[in-house]
């Protein structure tokens, strides 16, 4: 045991010196998270606001004006009235505006009448070339229509099939609240994998691995020693992101901090071990870095639920997300930021994350070659 600790300490100390002597790595490790957080937190705003819509009001009643007022009041739409059907068509045709809305004649009259057979009609045409934006326009429009139903509430049809959506935990549907807690997942996965992916490959490339293997040091001691300093670096990063999230982005943290930190520890160890495993297998820094980017980046964005909701994925891909730790850490991170989820509510993600990390550590020790066989 004492020998184990001495050897791990020796390897860790050496790795620590490599990190400190290499300002570039250190800069990447410390600056990349900041760049990510600020890019995603400030610049990339998945919310569309001020979407330009051309409006032709064929009714010109008090009700139609009220409806248009509600549409523009939300800040989501900038309305441009046009007064001839031709002009409206032309605007849409020339791709001037992403949407065109036509309020049908008798809009006001039909609302007042409240007749199910003959409801008030609004026609909306959205530019389908940008389907994400078109979808958003429709969503907003639905929300505004529901709002309108409440106000014009006399209509029996409105009351009959009123659909209400309420967003729990993020009532404003503030994207930043979703993005920043999830960012720690992407940054840690990418950075941890990247950092350790280079370490073993570097030893192979400059020949020091041969030397290491000729000494009595054991593979698990090398793996543990290499994990330690990078663990420190990654943990520092995760705290940094946490502080930014809470202080700069004012995201509420509702859950248990201890629980959050434990998830971080498990996740970081797993990601670092995965990096080492890549390094052990590839033995070359160039190959390792490509692997690390692919494995660190892609699942983080695609299979974690960061951008695409897991529930909407085809069954095969939904199943695939199970093997990526990013999925589990993301769930834990979001839940703990936005709700006060208890451990029992997060048991499944915790267990899956732990299994992943254990498997990675065991595999990297097992795959670590004790000889220089090609």
């Amino acid at each position, binding site marked *: 045991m004492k020998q184990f600790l001495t050897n791990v300490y020796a390897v860790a100390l050496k790795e620590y010196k490599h990190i400190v002597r290499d300002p570039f790595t250190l800069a990447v490790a410390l600056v990349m998270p900041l760049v990510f957080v600020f890019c995603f937190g400030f610049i990339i705003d998945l919310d569309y606001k001020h979407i330009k819509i051309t409006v032709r009001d064929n009714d010109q009643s008090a009700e139609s004006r009220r409806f248009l007022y509600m549409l523009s009041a939300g800040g989501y739409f900038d309305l441009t009235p046009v007064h001839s059907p031709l002009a409206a068509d032309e605007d849409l045709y020339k791709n001037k505006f992403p949407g065109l809305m036509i309020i049908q004649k008798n809009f006001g009259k039909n609302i007042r009448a409240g007749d199910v057979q003959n409801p008030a009609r609004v026609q909306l045409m959205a530019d389908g070339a940008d389907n994400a934006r078109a979808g958003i326009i429709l969503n907003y429009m639905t929300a505004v229509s529901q709002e309108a139903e409440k106000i014009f509430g006399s209509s029996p049809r409105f009351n009959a099939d009123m659909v209400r959506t309420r967003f729990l935990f993020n009532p404003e549907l503030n994207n930043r609240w979703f993005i920043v807690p999830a960012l720690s997942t992407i940054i840690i996965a990418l950075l941890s994998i990247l950092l350790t992916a280079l370490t073993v490959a570097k030893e192979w490339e*400059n020949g020091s691995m041969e030397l290491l293997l000729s000494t009595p040091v054991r593979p698990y001691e090398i793996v543990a020693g290499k994990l330690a300093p990078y663990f420190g670096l990654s943990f520092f990063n995760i705290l940094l992101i946490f502080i930014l999230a809470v202080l700069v982005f004012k995201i509420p943290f509702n859950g248990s901090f201890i629980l959050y930190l434990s998830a971080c520890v498990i996740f970081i160890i797993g990601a670092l071990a995965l990096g080492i495993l890549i390094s052990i297998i590839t033995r070359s820094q160039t190959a390792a870095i490509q692997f690390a980017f692919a494995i660190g980046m892609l699942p983080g964005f695609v299979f974690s639920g960061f951008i695409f909701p897991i529930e909407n994925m085809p069954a095969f891909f939904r199943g695939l997300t199970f093997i990526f730790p990013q999925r589990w850490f993301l769930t834990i991170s979001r839940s703990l930021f936005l709700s006060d989820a208890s451990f029992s509510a997060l048991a499944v993600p915790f267990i899956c994350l732990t299994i992943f990390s254990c498997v990675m550590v065991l595999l990297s020790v097992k795959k670590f070659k004790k000889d220089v066989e090609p």
Partner: protein
Amino acid sequence: MSSKEIIRVENLTVAFGSFKAVDGISFDVKRGEIFGFLGANGAGKTTTIRTICGLLNPSSGKVFVDGKDVSSDTTALKPHIGYMSQKFTLYKDLTIKENMEFAGALYNMKAADIKKKIKVLADFIKLEFDENSIVADLPGGVKQMVSLCATLLHEPDLVFLDEPTAGVSPQTRADFWGLIKDLSGRGTTVFVTTHYMDEASYCGRIVLMSAGKIVAVGTPEELVENNFPKPFAELVFKDARAVEKIKTEINASVFARAENYGAGLRAEIIDNGRFKIFSADNKNIFEIKTSAPTLEDVFLKLVS
């Protein structure tokens, strides 16, 4: 172990796929000797060393170090050997001292012992640089010396030096061999590979390898003696007729092989009696003297 042999290699073959890097070699190394492993690049020297160190597995055959089978137990062996590989393997971004401390720690040495030992080794190699210099900033020869120190730090009984003098200046090469002699004088067994034939004369015994096979074993003197019982003749041309003359005499009864040598030829004498007659006859055309055969000659004869 009191046995005379520290390494015994029996019928060792190491194959990578269908390629046999080492092909059925057997030899042994005596305790405390300087054992030279000679051969061109790709002859299988490094593969043999790696196998003895337990870094490669034999495809067939056995390797015993200190009487123990290497393939069954490498952990017991490792503290007793020091391996300086062909590639420069110290960490270039660390200082001399940090590299030493790391190496020492892996051999379970105490910090205080490491400190003392660094001083001793720095004297040993007459290190003129501060121990806090970053390794990357050192000249090539010094790097190699420091690398040797890292190998010797834990006082191994058996040291493997794989081409330690490749690519260093002649002065450093001479210094290096001085150190190797010193080491051997202290009872350390030194197993060294080189492709400089002139260095082989420093070795107690040598093995000559070619294409994975051993072509000769023995002391340098034995190898020369066995292959070239007679001296060489050095012929320097005095005029143009010599060129014609030698063409007829070579491959005849006087000389065996001949090769260009400076302004003339160097040829192996077959028969001393006939050589004397040849010398007397051709005094006017050639300047003739005899010279001792070298290991280089042996190598050329056996390998090519």
